[in-house]
C-alpha cells in the first residue's frame, strides 16, 4: 500500500482543467437566480442527487464527478446524503409514477432557497419513455426546474459546465 500512496503523492494530479460555464446554461439561469440567494450561498453548493426513475446511466456519470479526473469538490460543489443539507436537487430520469411521491417529499424536505437541476434527456420530457402511462413525464411535470443538462447520459464535463453556470450566477 505504501508504494501506491507514495506514487499518488509524487505524481502530477490527474484532474482535468476546469471547463468554462455553459453558455446555454447561463442564459437559462439568468432568469431563475435571485441576487439575494447568491449572497447567501456564495460559491458553495450542496447537491442532493435523486434518481426519479432513470436507467442508472446518469448516476454513473454523476458518480464520476467525484473522482480524480473531475474532482468537483474543487469548485465548492459537493454531494450530500440528505435533502435537509441540500441547496440543489439534481434529478435524473423520467419521473415514474412510483417515484413521484418520493421526489415531492425530497423537494419538500429541502430548505429554501433551492434549485432543481434536471439531468439527462429523460428528465427533459421522458425521453424514449415519453408517452408511457407508467411515467409522469420529465422532471418539470412534477417540480419547477431551474436548469436542464441534456445528454444520454450527459458527459461529466457537461454537468460541470451546467453547475458552474449555476454558481456563477449566484456569486
Amino acid at each position, binding site marked *: 500500500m505504501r508504494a501506491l500512496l507514495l506514487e499518488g503523492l509524487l505524481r502530477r494530479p490527474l484532474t482535468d482543467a476546469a471547463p468554462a460555464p455553459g453558455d446555454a446554461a447561463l442564459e437559462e439561469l439568468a432568469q431563475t437566480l435571485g441576487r439575494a440567494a447568491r449572497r447567501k450561498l456564495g460559491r458553495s453548493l450542496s447537491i442532493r442527487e435523486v*434518481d426519479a426513475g432513470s436507467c442508472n*446511466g446518469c448516476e454513473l456519470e454523476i458518480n464520476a464527478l467525484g473522482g480524480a*479526473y473531475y474532482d468537483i469538490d474543487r469548485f465548492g460543489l459537493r454531494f450530500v446524503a440528505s435533502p435537509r443539507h441540500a441547496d440543489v436537487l439534481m434529478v435524473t430520469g423520467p419521473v415514474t409514477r412510483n417515484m413521484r411521491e418520493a421526489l415531492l417529499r425530497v423537494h419538500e424536505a429541502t430548505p429554501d432557497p433551492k434549485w432543481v437541476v434536471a439531468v439527462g434527456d429523460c428528465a427533459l420530457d421522458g425521453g424514449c419513455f415519453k408517452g408511457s402511462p407508467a411515467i409522469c413525464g420529465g422532471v418539470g411535470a412534477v417540480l419547477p426546474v431551474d436548469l436542464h443538462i441534456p445528454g444520454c447520459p450527459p458527459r461529466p464535463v457537461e454537468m460541470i459546465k451546467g453547475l458552474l453556470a449555476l454558481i456563477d450566477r449566484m456569486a
Partner: protein
Amino acid sequence: MPALKQLLDSGRAVEGSRSCPRAVVAAPAWRNAAGRLASGRLALLGLWGEPEAAHMALRDTQTGEVGVISIACPERRYPSVSERHPPALRLERTLRDLYGLTPEGLPDPRPWLDHGWGGAAAPEPYPFLPVEGDCLHQIAVGPVHAGIIEPGHFRFTASGETVVRLEQRLGYTHKGVEALAEGAEIGAAARLAGRVSGDSTVAYALAFSRAVEAALGVTAPPRAAWLRGLMAELERLANHVSDIGAICNDAAFPLLHTHGGILREQTLRACDAAFGHRMMRDCIRPGGVAADLAPDGVAALRALTRSFAQRFPAMVRVYDETPSLLDRTTGAGVLTPALARQYAAGGYVGRASGRDFDARLAMPYAPYDALSFTAPTREDGDVHARIWVRILEVEQTLALIGQILDRLPEGPLSEALPAPDAPCEGLAVVEGFRGDVLAWVRIDADGRVARMHLRDPSWFQWPLLEAAIENNIVADFPLCNKSFNCSYSGCDL
C-alpha cells in the same frame, strides 16, 4: 429422454420460433416443468407473459439445451410456477401486475411493480411480511438512498445489530418498457432495450439485436460480431473495476475506490475515442454495429490495457495485503452454493458460489466461440469471493480485448434486415458484466416489434441478497449489497 425435450415434444410446436424451439403445452406439462425446475433438472432462464399467454424459457441442466414452453390463458389464469419453484415468484407477481394473469397457487399475492396505479390490486400501505419475536426492531431504508444510486426500499428487521430479515421492495423505476416496445419499429425498440439498465447498455443492445437477428434469420457480419465482443468486454471492464473499488469503499476503505474510479474513467475515455460514446450507447443495433472502430481507437484501447497492466495489479495487492479490509469482506454475506444453484444465479454472484455458468461459454456466440478464456469460480460465496471473481474476470477480459484487437477481421459492419413474410420470434442470451441477460422478441409480419421481453440477471440475484444478509450486522449491508450490485431499473422494467 432429456427433461426439456420431453416437455417440448408433449406440446404443439410454434412455427417461426427460429433460435430455439417453443411449444404450447397444456397445464399438466406446465406443472411438470415447475417440478423439474424444483428438482434442478431444469434451470429457469425467464418467465414472462402477454395478455393471454405465459411463457417460460428453460435450460436443461444435463444437456444444456434451451427451449421455451408457453401456456395459453384464455381465462387469464395459469398454474403458478413459484408455488413449487420460489425463484419464479417476483416474475409471476410482475406478470400479474402487467398483464392481469393470475398464477393459480401463487404463494405471495402482494403486487410487485404496481405501487397503486393498477387500481384495486395494491393495498396501501404495502404489507411487509410479518415478523414476530422479542427485542426486534425495524429499519426502513429508501426508496431515496444516501448515495448516488438507484431507488428501492429495504426493510430490515434486526435483533440488536444482527439482521434477522431483509425484505426488498422494488419497482420504483418502473417505466413501462415492454408496453412501449409493443408495435415499435425495430430501431426504436433497440434504443429502448439499450436504456433498460444503464450500466449494461451494451449487453442489452447485444441481447436484443441477437434476438431480432435470430427471428429474421440473419447473422451480423464477422467484423460486427467482433466489435460487439470488444464493446461487451469494455463494459465488463469498466463495471468490474469500479465495483471492486466501490465495495472496498463500503468497508470504509476509499483508497481503492479512487483507484478503481481512475481506471473506470480511463476505460470510458478509451470507449469514447474508439466508439464515440463513453458507455457505447446505441453503438450496437440489429444487423450489426452503428459505426466502425475510430481510426485511433486501437491505439486508445492498447494504451488502456497498458494502463491496466501497470495499475490493476497494484490495486489487487493493496486489497490482498490489507488485513483490516479483508476482515470486513471475508465471511460477510455468504451465499450458499445450493441457493445459487436453485436460483440459477448468473454472473459473479453465481460464480462466487460455485455455479460455473457463463453464457459466453455455456451458450457460445460470436466472437467468443473463436476466443480463448475461462470463467473463474470460487466456492466460498462471501463478499471476498465476489471481489475475487471480479478480479479474475478483469484479467480474463483484458486478455480477451488483446485477442480481439490482434485478430479483428475486416469486412462489412452490418447486414440488412429482411422484411419478414410471417410473424417470427427470436431469443438470445448474452453475458453482461452482472450475468446473463435474456432477450425474447416477436416480430410482426409488417416488421414491427409485437412483443419484447428483457430479463435482467438481477431477477435471480436480488432474492439471494435477502438470504445472504441474514445474521450479518446491519453495518455490513452496504458492503454485501455492493458486492451483489443488482440492477434496480433492469428488474423494474
